[in-house]
């Protein structure tokens, strides 16, 4: 080669495609078998949070935008979905759509404001806006204040299928998750996704190539908010509850945690991270506030040991191995 050789020829980074297909098949088998071994309610919770984390990761991992206020979209959607199902008596699929649409709208407004600033200022604006949503939910008459919105009916899917049947509900949640996950995967792999990643890597250069960066960031923000809303709406139906916990800043922090533990900027990382965090909360619940300590310790260990998160580290490892075998200097 003509240039001075100073680095190893690495393996193609898209080589992970076959790996992804493998992961999808494995996940499918797991999802089908899981309700026979694990509490369905736990699985549904994990799926909702996995979708939430994936939505968040679309913005952080692929857009390079760290939102500290994603609970706003998750929680607002939960309330709107609950209101639609309980007060308006809409069917579950329409209630979920209502919640998702509400979050998308919120995302348009908040995103439009936040993307005007970069880095930590962006994060602070998202946090401040989310706090406004929180206080609104504390005050508003229809949220039920401290008690939350309780006894949200799961209802009949399309007016036919009774979602009070746990297995039916589980299948429905799996379907919602797969749709949301599919949208995110497609978005990342789309022409839009490529431009978004370019802007994340080097915004001025992307602008000089003719891309109006803010428009792409806004679209990513809205998609992320809408999908976080999809997760929040579904969660409201699973637990038949929408509460202040859903819009609290701690929820915004938790989704950051899940994404970083699993690996930001990877397709499956947030899923893994969400399952780990939800599992810790569920199975260590008897330890009381120690859960927080363990969660914190796990987070620190993950960040120190695997900077790229669990899935990110596995990908690096596999890529390095493959690169080593095919590498000509």
């Amino acid at each position, binding site marked *: *080669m*003509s*240039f*001075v*050789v*100073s*680095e*190893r*020829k*690495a*393996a*193609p*980074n*898209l080589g992970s495609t076959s790996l992804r297909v493998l992961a999808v098949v494995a996940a499918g088998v797991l999802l089908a078998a899981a309700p026979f071994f694990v509490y369905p309610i736990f699985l549904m919770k994990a799926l909702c949070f996995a979708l939430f984390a994936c939505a968040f990761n679309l913005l952080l991992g692929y857009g390079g935008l760290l939102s500290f206020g994603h609970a706003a979209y998750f929680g607002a959607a939960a309330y709107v979905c609950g209101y639609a199902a309980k007060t308006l008596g809409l069917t579950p699929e329409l209630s979920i759509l209502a919640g998702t649409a509400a979050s998308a709208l919120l995302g348009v407004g908040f995103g439009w404001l936040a993307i005007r600033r970069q880095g930590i200022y962006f994060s602070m604006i998202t946090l401040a806006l989310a706090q406004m949503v929180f206080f609104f939910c504390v005050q508003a008459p229809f949220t039920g204040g401290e008690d939350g919105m309780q006894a949200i009916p799961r209802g009949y899917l399309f007016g036919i299928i009774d979602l009070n049947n746990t297995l039916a509900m589980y299948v429905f949640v799996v379907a919602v998750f797969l749709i949301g996950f599919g949208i995110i995967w*497609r*978005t990342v*792999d*789309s*022409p*839009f*996704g*490529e*431009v978004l*990643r*370019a802007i*994340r*890597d*080097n915004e*001025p*250069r*992307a*602008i*000089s*190539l*003719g*891309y*109006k*960066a803010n*428009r*792409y960031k806004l*679209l990513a923000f809205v*998609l992320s908010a809408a999908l976080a809303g999809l997760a929040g709406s579904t969660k409201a139906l699973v637990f038949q509850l929408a509460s202040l916990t859903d819009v609290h800043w701690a929820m915004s922090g938790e989704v950051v945690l899940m994404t970083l533990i699993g690996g930001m*900027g990877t397709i499956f990382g947030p899923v893994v991270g969400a399952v780990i965090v939800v599992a810790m909360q569920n199975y260590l619940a008897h330890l009381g506030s120690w859960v927080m300590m363990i969660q914190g310790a796990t987070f620190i260990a993950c960040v120190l040991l695997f900077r790229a998160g669990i899935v990110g580290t596995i990908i690096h490892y596999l890529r390095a191995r493959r690169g080593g075998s095919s590498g000509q200097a």
Partner: protein
Amino acid sequence: MQQHAPRPSGPTGDGDNIIETRGLTKEFLGFVAVRDVNLKVKRHTIHALIGPNGAGKTTVFNLLTKFLRPTSGSIHFNGVDVTRTAPADMAGQGMVRSFQISSVFSHLTVLENVRVALQRPLGISFHFWKPRRTLHPLHERADELIEWVGLTPYRDVNAGELSYGRKRALEFATTLALEPEMLLLDEPMAGLGHEDIHRISSLIKRVAANRTVLMVEHNLSVVADLSDTITVLTRGSVLAEGDYAAVSTNPSVREAYIGGVHA
């Protein structure tokens, strides 16, 4: 000032100059970084902007490419006043820049780096529902460009893993994907070794065959070798302009910039 024989000029009058600034000035909180610069870059030439550190070269670039708004003065590109144009619209007008530090997308492969530049004219860059293969028709052109800069063996490598010289080569491939009339290069040789400098030099020459290049460069032998015209900037103002022979023998240039060290 300009004593070149003018070519037949286009409809806009001064068709000979692709870019022209009038009284370009930029102040940062009272500090004048660029003062009353009247820069004219002739079409199909390589024009170098040189000067000591902090002279205002990058600031001039930022003004020309609209990343900064001038405090006063105007910028004309192809006879059109672009003083108020948005930076992202300059690519559409035919002007693309590189940056002093790095101009690659590190976590995109070499192919993706070039492809992202090629995809804009397709008008599908907001289509988040379309699969990746929508972009595959671009591969033929992308591969041509990648080959042109000698990066074919690295097509599927992440740009961040390339050596400095190859990153520069990739920048060219990406920039050329837009088929710009004019390229602005901010220190294209910075950080490069001997051999890479040679390669990038010949790339610039090939690129400039039917394009205009304006570049900031500290390496004077590169400047001497490549440029048709040199503008010397010190403390925000133009000190001298001309070809290398004229500029390098100019006493005030020798004093202020070259300091008598270079012959």
